[in-house]
């Protein structure tokens, strides 16, 4: 049994400490907005926030989270930057197939948390680990800039 702070609520999960957070979110709590992509922290689809910073939940074990606050795509819209990012995403219709986009939004929000007015190089450095096979990168870049101005 491991207790986690997820989207502002305390959740107890009946799983061993070496269970990946992604499994706990999707299979135990039904929070399926966070996606499984590669399973080896190379695609970014599983990105969530731990204390406001982007982490790959596929390789983060629930035993190592402790009391740190986890935020997922389901609740990131309740944060100021998360709301701005989601609106910017809808305004210019960033999404194509959408599979990677919850991860993209989590990474973009974490970027704005750290760097409120990112330049192209900041966006590259923060977003390079989030892959999009539809190639929505140019719209992602634009939406991040729009969100920063909002």
């Amino acid at each position, binding site marked *: 049994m491991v207790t986690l702070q997820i989207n502002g609520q305390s959740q107890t999960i009946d799983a061993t400490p070496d269970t990946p957070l992604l499994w706990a979110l999707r299979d135990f709590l039904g929070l399926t907005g966070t996606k499984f992509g590669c399973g080896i*922290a*190379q695609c970014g689809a599983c990105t969530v926030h731990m204390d406001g910073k*982007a*982490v*790959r939940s596929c*390789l*983060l074990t629930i035993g190592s989270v402790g009391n740190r606050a986890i935020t997922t795509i389901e609740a990131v819209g309740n944060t100021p930057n998360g709301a701005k990012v989601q609106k910017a995403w809808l305004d210019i219709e960033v999404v194509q197939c959408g599979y990677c986009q919850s991860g993209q939004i989590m990474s973009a929000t974490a970027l704005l948390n750290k760097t409120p007015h990112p330049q192209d190089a900041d966006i*590259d*450095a923060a977003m390079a*680990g989030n892959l999009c096979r539809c190639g929505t990168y140019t719209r992602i870049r634009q939406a991040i800039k729009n969100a920063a101005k909002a």
Partner: protein
Amino acid sequence: MTARNIIVGLACIAIIVLAAMAWIVLGPGPMAFAPGSTVAIASAGSDPSGVPKELAGGDVIKRGEYLAHAADCLACHTGKDAQAYAGGFAFNLPMIGTIYSTNITPDKETGIGNYTDAQFLAAVHRGKRQDGQNLYPAMPYASYTYMTDADALAIKAYLFTLPAVHAPARANRLNFPFNQRALLTAWNMFFSPDTRFAVNAAQSPEWNRGAYLSEALGHCGECHTPRNLMYALDNRQKFAGALTAGWRAYNISADAKAGLGAWSDASLTSYLATGHAEGHGGAAGPMGEASDNSLTYLTAGDIHAMVVYLRSVPAAASNLPHVITVPAPASFREGVTAGLDKRGEKLFAGACASCHDWTGKGQLTTFATLTGARSVNDPSAVNVAQTVMNGIDRKTAAGNVFMPSFGNAYTNAEIAQLANYVTARFGPEGAHLTEKGVQSLRDQAAQR
């Protein structure tokens, strides 16, 4: 030039050559650094061999299993994707060629199922095969020779309980003259001590147990001690570190900068017991295997004995600069020396930063902390490049520790750029690894 001058000149050359040979041949043994005289175990007050007290009541097979773990037979006697102990692991020696390890399961045809006790001891202590031919010293018989007969035979008893696997030995691919096994008879005359462990009465029982574990069983020096021109261990630079199988086996002498001098006992204990120590990084590559297959099986008392012994090895300097113990800046814009190849930074952003962070202290697991790790502080970047190529897949008490391998995804040039960037960002000086250098590292570590 007169005939007399020529003779004098030749004589001088002969003397120099002989002196150089004598210098190599008469090198000290692995435990010669320690003051005190030695006596055979039988006549000593304490016996540092065998299994720890808590296992002493067990049967010979249980004892043999513990000792086989301590001697780490598995790592070398298991090929890639092969069954345990069935051989086929490749030792790639630059200039010399490739030697494959052999099947030590009890299969009668291709393994050691027909070995008598005496034949097994001859192999372990003297490097002699059942047919009387010489083994190559890739089999560390120059270290295992210090093992007692009882311990070697306990290992044999354990091996004989394993499932017999039919796996014929792969033919070695060695260049002339190294393909002539008979030549090893001469090598053995000089470099095979053929002697059992002797107790150093001036040292503590812990020290003697640690020496037995580290030398007779663990054979640490086979990777961590540099080799001389004749490929024998050069104990004048004991534990000074060496390049083995394309990986850097680090300096584990008492040297404060390059070795273990600055490590606390707690860190060293943690590293030996778990393959990881906070602030020093984790074991990867061959040391990761030594950790998972061997050291993690040792009792706390045996780990302590190894710490006592390792601490006593005198400092041997090597050219590793000081270790950077503070994290890199949080922003990618800061920290790295200007003028560095930007492609390394781009690769790091895409593949590495999500776990390791730009600081080197990622949030995922402390196993992924780069700050303070010797790999990133080694300006040769050998182990950074190897870890990037091979990834990490370790089974620890805390669960699996995993990093993907990028060897098939990235070109040699990309791996060099990334390794150069990583050492510059997290270590005291950036590496200058080249495409060719990376290919050479690939070749040395290759299992094919």
